């Protein structure tokens, strides 16, 4: 295996020096995927024939016309629509659904010359923190196949961690990029809300959902973000703002940078290993000249409750479109039209999706609207203000990404509140809409831990600069899992 663990710059150099072709890299990618999938189960659909055909065509393109990601393989989370490539959101209700158009981010990947190798497993409709809510399969954490990869972008994080692909796209509504990135020891960025078009991202909670890149290194992450962001008139919430050269921000210089460390992110429920790893990371940044101070984000503990009310309410509305009429699963038990809808939906959706649809329907129903939905929206204002106040004085906010490392498969299934608590440190970021990244910062019993770096609105550049400076001073990103049971190495 010649190309696994290489960065995009290293792969481009091999191609330019004629030591490898795009066809070679594509071929090896699929060989590795076929060897590892029986253990990792990250992919739902593979695009092998089309990708192989594209690769040999791309080898003919003159070097002068290629960008930094040209010809490189990428996996895409299964809630991002890909024309002609089955897109299920890991739900039975979309079994066999073949999109008739591409998401804006997919068009942008193609414009950058990236090769989509397949679609990645997730929690059904992005609702979950372990990938156990997929209708199709349980993705495993490459660092320990008995533990979860996190979620909901668990397939996206596991595929990158296992070295099946160097790049993937995930989506993050309450931590769904950062939490699996932390669990799998890779780099995952949730950009500012509005940075990336959501056109073609199957909606879960529209005011929170954001697509983002998952990679091995911060530099590759910055390059992929640059390729996929920008204004799109097909998404009226996409921000009309210039796209920076994010990779140019990776100067390694954090001298004088002000880091706020919220005491609430080290409170009860956050494990010792996470706290210790973050404190050591802060020392590294301090050693490079950053100023570290304790701050308070006083409304943090209310974020989880506000999130589940708001996200479930939006989901109950967004998921009403799945009715079995124009696409997707259709019940065999049709009586009249009402029975048809009810049976299609109850057979098509899994339990967690049903719970959130019902919770949202309840929170929005007359008599409860003010007590739940409106109250949660007001709390969202207070949480956003916490961040606004902090960013008036600090450049970034740093804490752990998750309270603990990855847990065992089956450990928290059917205990919704225990499962939800995984996201206490990532959810406030989505409610405020600011950008945040998770980078590897240590291990607990062989399982990776994540450092969360949060920035102000549209300041992904500073987030990347800090993440990169930290990464370059440590070697956690160079560690790779040894996948057991005769896997290819």
């Amino acid at each position, binding site marked *: 295996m010649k190309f696994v663990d290489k960065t995009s710059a290293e792969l481009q150099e091999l191609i330019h020096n004629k030591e490898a072709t795009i066809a070679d890299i594509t071929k090896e990618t699929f060989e590795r995927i076929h060897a590892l999938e029986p253990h990792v189960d990250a992919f739902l659909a593979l695009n092998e024939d089309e990708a192989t055909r594209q690769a040999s065509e791309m080898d003919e393109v003159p070097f002068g016309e290629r960008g930094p990601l040209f010809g490189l393989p990428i996996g895409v989370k299964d809630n991002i629509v890909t024309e002609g490539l089955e897109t299920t959101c890991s739900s039975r209700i979309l079994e066999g659904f*073949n999109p008739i158009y591409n998401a804006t981010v997919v068009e942008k990947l193609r414009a950058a010359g990236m090769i989509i190798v397949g679609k990645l497993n997730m929690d059904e409709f992005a609702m979950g923190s372990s990938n156990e809510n997929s209708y199709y399969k349980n993705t495993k954490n490459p660092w320990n196949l008995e533990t979860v990869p996190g979620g909901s972008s668990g397939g996206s994080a596991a595929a990158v961690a296992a070295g099946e692909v160097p790049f993937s796209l995930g989506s993050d509504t309450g931590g769904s990029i950062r939490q699996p990135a932390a669990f799998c020891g890779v780099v995952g960025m949730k950009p500012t809300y509005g940075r990336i078009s959501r056109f073609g991202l199957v909606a879960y909670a529209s005011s929170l959902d954001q697509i983002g890149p998952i990679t091995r290194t911060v530099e590759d992450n910055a390059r992929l973000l640059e390729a996929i962001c920008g204004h799109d008139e097909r998404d009226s919430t996409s921000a009309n703002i210039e796209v920076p050269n994010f990779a140019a921000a990776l100067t390694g210089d954090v001298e004088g940078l002000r880091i706020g460390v919220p005491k609430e992110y080290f409170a009860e429920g956050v494990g010792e290993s996470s706290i210790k790893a973050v404190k050591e990371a802060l020392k590294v940044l301090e050693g490079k000249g950053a100023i570290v101070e304790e701050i308070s984000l006083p409304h943090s503990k209310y974020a989880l409750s506000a999130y589940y009310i708001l996200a479930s309410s939006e989901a109950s509305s967004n998921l009403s479109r799945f009715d079995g009429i124009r696409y997707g699963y259709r019940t065999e038990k049709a009586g*009249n039209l009402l029975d048809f809808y009810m049976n299609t939906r109850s057979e098509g959706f899994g339990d967690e999706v*049903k719970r959130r649809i019902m919770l949202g329907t*309840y929170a929005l*129903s007359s008599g409860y609207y003010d007590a739940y939905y*409106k109250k*949660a929206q007001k709390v969202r204002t*207070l949480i956003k203000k916490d961040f606004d106040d902090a960013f008036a004085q600090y450049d970034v906010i740093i804490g752990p990404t998750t309270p603990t490392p990855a847990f065992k498969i089956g450990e928290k299934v059917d205990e*919704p509140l225990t499962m939800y608590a995984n996201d206490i440190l990532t959810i406030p970021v989505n409610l405020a*809409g600011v950008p945040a990244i998770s980078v590897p910062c240590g291990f607990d019993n062989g399982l990776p831990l994540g450092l969360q770096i949060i920035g102000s609105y549209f300041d992904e550049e500073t987030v990347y600069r800090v993440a990169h400076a930290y990464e370059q001073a440590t070697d956690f990103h160079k560690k790779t899992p040894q996948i057991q049971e005769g896997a290819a190495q």
Partner: protein
Amino acid sequence: MAKITKEEVIEVAHLARLAITDEEAEHFAEQLEAITNAMELLNELDTEGVEPTTHVLPVVNVLREDKASPGLPIEQVMKNVREQEAGHVKVPTILD
């Protein structure tokens, strides 16, 4: 603390167009009650006079030019329809 009964769950499930059995309703009632009780944590916050946030960015009424543009071809739009006849989507009888 709010109590969520099996009957309420059945009512909510009906509003959400989900068929559920009595047994499922009982299980969901327990879980939804635990979840909503946890969410009542928000009641300890005084939010008098706080404006609700529906959206984090200061964008309002994004408009485009009112110009017609072609949609997707009909054969493509019908590609995922499981039951169809003569270019129409088939559904079950609406009235009994």
